[in-house]
C-alpha cells in the first residue's frame, strides 16, 4: 500500500481529530470554583480576625483549615470529582496542594507506609516545596546583600 500522506499532512490530520479543549467553559468553571475557594479562605480569615488572632496566626490558621479540608475532601473522594469539571479551579488553590499530597499517597498505600504513603505524599508537594523554598532563600539573600 502506498503512503498517501506525508508527515506534515498526517500531523494536521491527527490534530484535527484530537479533542479540542473547551477553553471557555473550562475557564468559567475554573474562575467560579477558584473564586469560591478564595471566598471560603476569606471567610475563615475574617473569623480568625474577629476572634483577635494576629495577622500571622490568622494566615497560618486559614492555611491549616484549608489544607485540612483539601485532605479530607480528597480522602472521601469528593475533591477528585470536583477536579473533573473545575480543572485549575481545584488545582491552584491551597486545597489542591493538599489534594496533590493525599491522592498519590492513597493510591500507593499498598507499597507500604514508608515508600508508599511516605514517599508518594511528596510526588508533587516535594517539587513545590523545593522550588518555592529555594527561591525564597535566594530572594532573602538578595535582600540581605542589596537592600
Amino acid at each position, binding site marked *: 500500500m502506498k503512503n498517501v500522506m506525508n508527515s506534515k499532512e498526517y500531523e494536521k490530520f491527527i490534530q484535527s481529530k484530537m479533542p479540542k479543549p473547551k477553553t471557555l467553559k473550562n475557564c468559567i468553571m475554573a474562575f467560579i470554583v477558584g473564586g469560591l475557594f478564595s471566598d471560603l479562605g476569606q471567610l475563615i480569615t475574617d473569623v480568625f480576625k474577629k476572634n483577635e488572632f494576629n495577622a500571622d496566626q490568622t494566615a497560618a490558621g486559614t492555611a491549616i483549615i484549608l*489544607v485540612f479540608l483539601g485532605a479530607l475532601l480528597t480522602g472521601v473522594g469528593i475533591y477528585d470529582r470536583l477536579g473533573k469539571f473545575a480543572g*485549575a479551579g481545584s488545582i491552584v*488553590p491551597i486545597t489542591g496542594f*493538599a489534594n496533590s499530597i493525599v491522592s498519590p499517597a492513597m493510591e500507593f498505600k499498598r507499597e507500604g507506609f514508608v515508600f508508599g504513603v511516605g514517599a508518594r505524599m511528596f510526588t508533587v508537594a516535594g*517539587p513545590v516545596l523545593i522550588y518555592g523554598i529555594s527561591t525564597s532563600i535566594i530572594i*532573602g539573600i538578595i535582600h540581605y546583600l542589596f537592600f
Partner: protein
Amino acid sequence: MMDYIKAFIVGGIICVIGQLLMDHTKLTPARILVLFVTAGVILQGLGLYQKLVDIGGAGATVPLPGFGYALAKGAIKEVKEAGLIGAFTGGIKATSGGIAGAVFFGYIASVVFSPKTKK
C-alpha cells in the same frame, strides 16, 4: 461584602491563568503548581504580590502563588530582623502552619481513606 467580591475575582482570575496554561501548553498540573509558587516568590521579591494581596485578600493568598508570597515575605522580613540566617529561617517560619498541616492531615487522610474506584 466587597472583600468577598474582590477575593472571588482575584482568586478566580489566578485559576483561569492556570486553566489557560493547562489547555494551551503542555504543562502538567504539577509543573503549573511549581511555576505558580515560584512566580509568587519572585513577584513578592520584587514587592509586587503584596499589591495583589491588598486588593484581593484571600483571593491572592489562597491560590498557590500566595504560598510563594508568604515564603518570600517571611524570608525578607526575617532578613531585616536577623540578617543572613533569616533568609533560611523566615520563609519556612511564615509558612510552617500550612506545611505542617499539609504533612499531618495529608498523612492521616492517606492512611485512613482508600481511593474510590474510578468510573
